[in-house]
């Protein structure tokens, strides 16, 4: 009898939390509907905001753990990052929706938002899958951009995580089997160099999680060693001010590196 009561209490608690989340979400959406949407500042202001940050990540990760992908949000994050001088952005969705939708969804959004923000200013966005060579960019230029603003975007999914490490292990073992390498030459420095996902990129210093799930669902585990993980607010599309707040919050984080 006690067990039944405890079980009911727990179910009630979860129900109350779910209701509270739904009500809060509905109220927020209502407020967004009727409030004035803050205008995204012009490019010069965004660039100035980027320069004023205490620190910028060289590589920004975006981990998508929400049910519906907001392509405008992804396009905006890429372009705002470009304006901030961030040269590497990785977009991760475990099931590969971002990779699958890159041509039909992401590129058109990128092109539209790029025109709105950058206008005639040259901006090069190179989309690539995992560690593949960069493909044509959003504005039709080749991968070797010579504009001031450029960013490489890796479209990642689950096999780029642990799967990439296993593939690297297999390759190393093949080299050992053929005598091309000694087993004791394998250490953490050389193993990291063997990975193909975001190969030769710096590790992501910051990852923005889009969605309420409290897990990273396979995002680049090796590279995630010292990555700060911040949750984006739930509003979609993401506002520029929310992006700026996240980057500002990152700027205030001090890493002690074990010391």
């Amino acid at each position: 009898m006690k067990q039944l009561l405890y079980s009911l209490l727990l179910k009630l608690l979860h129900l109350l939390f779910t209701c509270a989340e739904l009500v809060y979400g509905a109220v927020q959406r209502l407020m967004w509907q009727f409030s004035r949407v803050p205008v995204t500042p012009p490019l010069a202001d965004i660039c100035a905001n980027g320069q004023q940050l205490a620190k910028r990540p060289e590589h920004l990760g975006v981990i998508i753990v929400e049910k519906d992908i907001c392509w405008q949000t992804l396009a905006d994050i890429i372009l705002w990052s470009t304006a901030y001088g961030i040269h590497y952005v990785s977009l991760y969705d475990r099931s590969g929706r971002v990779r699958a939708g890159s041509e039909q969804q992401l590129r058109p959004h990128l092109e539209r938002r790029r025109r709105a923000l950058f206008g005639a200013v040259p901006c090069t966005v190179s989309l690539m899958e995992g560690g593949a060579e960069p493909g044509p960019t959003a504005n039709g230029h080749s991968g070797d951009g010579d504009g001031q603003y450029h960013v490489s975007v890796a479209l990642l999914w689950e096999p780029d995580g642990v799967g990439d490490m296993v593939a690297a292990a297999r390759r190393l073992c093949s080299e050992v089997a053929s005598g091309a390498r000694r087993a004791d030459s394998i250490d953490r420095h050389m193993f990291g160099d063997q990975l193909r996902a975001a190969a030769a990129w710096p590790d992501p210093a910051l990852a923005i999680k889009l969605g309420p799930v409290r897990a990273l669902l396979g995002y680049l585990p090796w590279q995630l060693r010292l990555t700060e993980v911040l949750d984006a607010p739930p509003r979609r599309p993401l506002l520029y001010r929310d992006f700026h707040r996240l980057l500002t919050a990152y700027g205030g984080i001090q890493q002690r590196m074990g010391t």
Partner: protein
Amino acid sequence: MTWISDKKLTWYESVCMNVLKTGQVPRHVAFIMDGNRRYAKRNHIEKTEGHARGFTKLSETLKWCRDLGVTEVTVYAFSIENFRRPQSEIDGIMNLAREKFELLLKERDKLSEHGVCIRFIGDLSLLPADIQRQTAEVMLMTRNNKAARLNIAFSYTAREEISRAVRDVAAGVSDGHLWSSDVTERLVEQCLYTRESPRPDLLVRTSGEVRLSDFLLWQTTHTCIFFTEVLWPDFSIWHLFSAVFTYQRNYDVIQAARADRSLRRLQHSTDGLLPGTARPGDSVTRPGDSAGESLDSTDSGSECAADDRVDSASQSAAAQKRVQSFLSHLDAARWGRLESLVAEGS
């Protein structure tokens, strides 16, 4: 001062615990116990006293976990990176470790009574020789305890763990125990320090930091992560309850992601058979067979079983035999090293 705290819960703590236990309880919880030094600074005490209070909190937390029904706990006690701290602080931490590990040896009976197996994970060769001997003795002393396990990550980083596992596998290939085509995700995982353990269901990090700091990177890809601002010595049972409640609220979506991952790996392994694996005439299970159907159930323990089925589906009987033989050999070598350490010291 004890590793096995007997502190009783208040009646309202008991009620809340019993309520939580009617839902999903994580089988394996990992803790990044961060904040001892900031706690010391805030309370105007020495850093070593801050670490000592951190140990007291660990003892309490282990008790709460036992009461909740958590059967495995992994704690990040000391990172390889922490060797860069001032020598005086390192010496203080090592002295505290000596004291606490000696206490573990003295509490052999209590550990046996509760069936607690202790495992130290990390590059223990970096530690002072006497601490290496203590850790070896504790692990040998408790190896047959099966009710619960405590993994203490000491002189540990995940990258060192992963690269060492790959090196061990490569050494197996070099020695002829394995073929390179035998290398699978499950094999590498069974060479990690946390072999035989289910992946953590819940990871708790205190002190407000929002990164993993090179802790269990391989094992926590699909783990519920709970970051909390509280400093470790101030961690309370209510923070643990919040973490477990968060785990319950994220349970379904994380389990679905785990199941999806296992199914995708099974499909990948049977659709694109690796060279040197199954040959015509070998039996290979495919999605829809019993292996695929049983992937629906993916708590942390059955996820390991699901990974075993992925390997069984794609590997020939000969490959499975090579892998088992290699793992037995590796296991024997590891226990042999521990026995040598203890023998040297006595």
